[in-house]
């Protein structure tokens, strides 16, 4: 099968993000390789040590991050469906999850007893990770908009033994508005926003074909709207993690910059176990707040992973019902 190629506009944008020629070549090489097989131990059902000791009898497994023993790399070629058809998977002892997608929840750092909202939860990799960190206590509200996606989410929650979760079906904006109006406030909010998916080229080659620059602007507007409303459900002093699986600055730093300029929030510096590059402070003709450099850009060539973006906010004050800058008539 012919190797998929980047669309010219996409290549041009990536070269702008990765101006070093060698760096770009490394990127262009790795995005055509299959991603590594990572799993995450589901500590609601089994301890990390117990799972690791079981799996090492059948696979070559490695715990790369001493502070995060739940992250396990299967360092060998696997047959099709081998991870999903293993007894340990059927019992819900682990979740197959790309390592960079685990970073959002590590940044969010949910604790037992907290109230947490996952605005765009399906298929549930991060939701189950949150529940695991919460040890099935507190309350986790996991929302998504489509019923077919919610069924997948629910199946994953059942398999992982998640018992502290309320699964809701709403559009994210409407849900946040109603929750805020009725006084439901959360210690932590995860907004892993729908995005153009530029970071998923290794696992989903169709992204090469589907990528469209026009979509990025539209998604960026929706992401800002989601984020603006997600802040409303946060307790003062609470944390919100905004993440995407794309490299497009319009969907990442531009959204973060919008939040910094319109809401009483502080951007936090992140300490994640992957190599992170700072957020870009300018893109095309736009200059962003210098603070956006605290965001974390994860590139495939740095970590032998997929691509990802993570940022973390703290809400400093009550959100007043004002119209943010460039927010009139629902436009951003």
């Amino acid at each position, binding site marked *: 099968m012919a190797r998929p190629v980047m669309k010219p506009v996409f290549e041009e944008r990536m070269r702008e993000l990765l101006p070093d020629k060698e760096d770009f070549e490394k990127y262009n090489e790795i995005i055509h390789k299959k991603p590594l097989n990572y799993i995450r131990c589901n500590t*609601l*059902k089994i301890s990390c040590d117990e799972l690791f000791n079981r799996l090492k009898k059948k696979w070559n497994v490695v715990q790369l991050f001493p502070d995060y023993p739940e992250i396990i790399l299967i360092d060998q070629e696997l047959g099709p*469906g081998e991870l999903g*058809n293993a*007894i340990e998977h*059927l*019992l*819900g002892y682990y979740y197959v999850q790309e390592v960079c997608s685990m970073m959002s929840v590590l940044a969010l750092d949910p604790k037992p*007893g907290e*109230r947490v909202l996952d605005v765009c939860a399906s298929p549930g990799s991060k939701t189950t990770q949150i529940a695991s960190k919460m040890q*099935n*206590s*507190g*309350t*986790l*509200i996991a*929302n998504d908009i489509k*019923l077919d996606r*919610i069924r997948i989410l*629910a*199946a994953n*929650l*059942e*398999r992982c*033994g*998640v*018992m*502290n*979760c*309320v*699964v*809701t*079906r*709403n559009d994210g904006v409407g*849900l946040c508005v*109603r*929750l805020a*109006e*009725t006084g*439901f406030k959360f210690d932590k909010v995860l907004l892993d926003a729908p995005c153009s998916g530029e970071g998923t080229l290794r696992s989903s080659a169709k992204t090469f074909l589907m990528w469209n620059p026009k979509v990025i602007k539209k998604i960026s507007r929706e992401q800002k709207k989601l984020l603006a409303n997600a802040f409303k459900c946060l307790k003062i002093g609470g944390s919100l993690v905004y993440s995407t699986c794309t490299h497009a600055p319009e969907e990442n730093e531009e959204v973060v910059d919008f939040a910094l300029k319109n809401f009483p929030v502080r951007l936090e510096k992140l300490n994640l176990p992957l190599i992170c590059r700072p957020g870009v402070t300018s893109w095309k003709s736009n200059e962003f707040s210098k603070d956006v450099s605290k965001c974390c850009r994860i590139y495939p060539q740095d970590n032998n992973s997929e691509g990802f973006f993570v940022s973390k906010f703290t809400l400093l004050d009550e959100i007043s019902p004002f119209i943010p800058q460039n927010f009139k008539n629902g436009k951003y």
Partner: protein
Amino acid sequence: MKFEFYDSKKRKKLIEQLNERFGVTEIPKLLFETGKERVRGFTGDLTIDELYDLSKITNIEFLGAYLFKPDEERSVRLGFDACVLFNKQLSKNIIDISAEQLKIWMKGENLPFVIQKGMYLVRHENDFFGCAISDGEKLINFVPKERRLRRN
């Protein structure tokens, strides 16, 4: 999703059944039925009133996890995941199966097994693989379809 929450009397009766049959005494505080005669448990800190308030402003599709299915004839059946979640409490009516039998069981097939009629837990080594009903000659399989081994 419609919830019918268990009151303390109903909860106590369920615990008695679970204890008598399997040795389970600790279960989530909030139990409810959802119309499919299935008992789900919620370990979150929202009260029943807060859950009702939440259901007024949002579409609640699922709550907590499926744990038990009451069975008039044979006491109560534990769900596949409940067996894993409560594995440290399970102490009665356990059938140990071999690796070969496990392969058959996890494909969703009934297992030839002569034992007194009733509800049993299926175990291989330290793992529990759901409940089985014995008709005296075989163990009837309840492994959910999505959790069965795919045939190669």
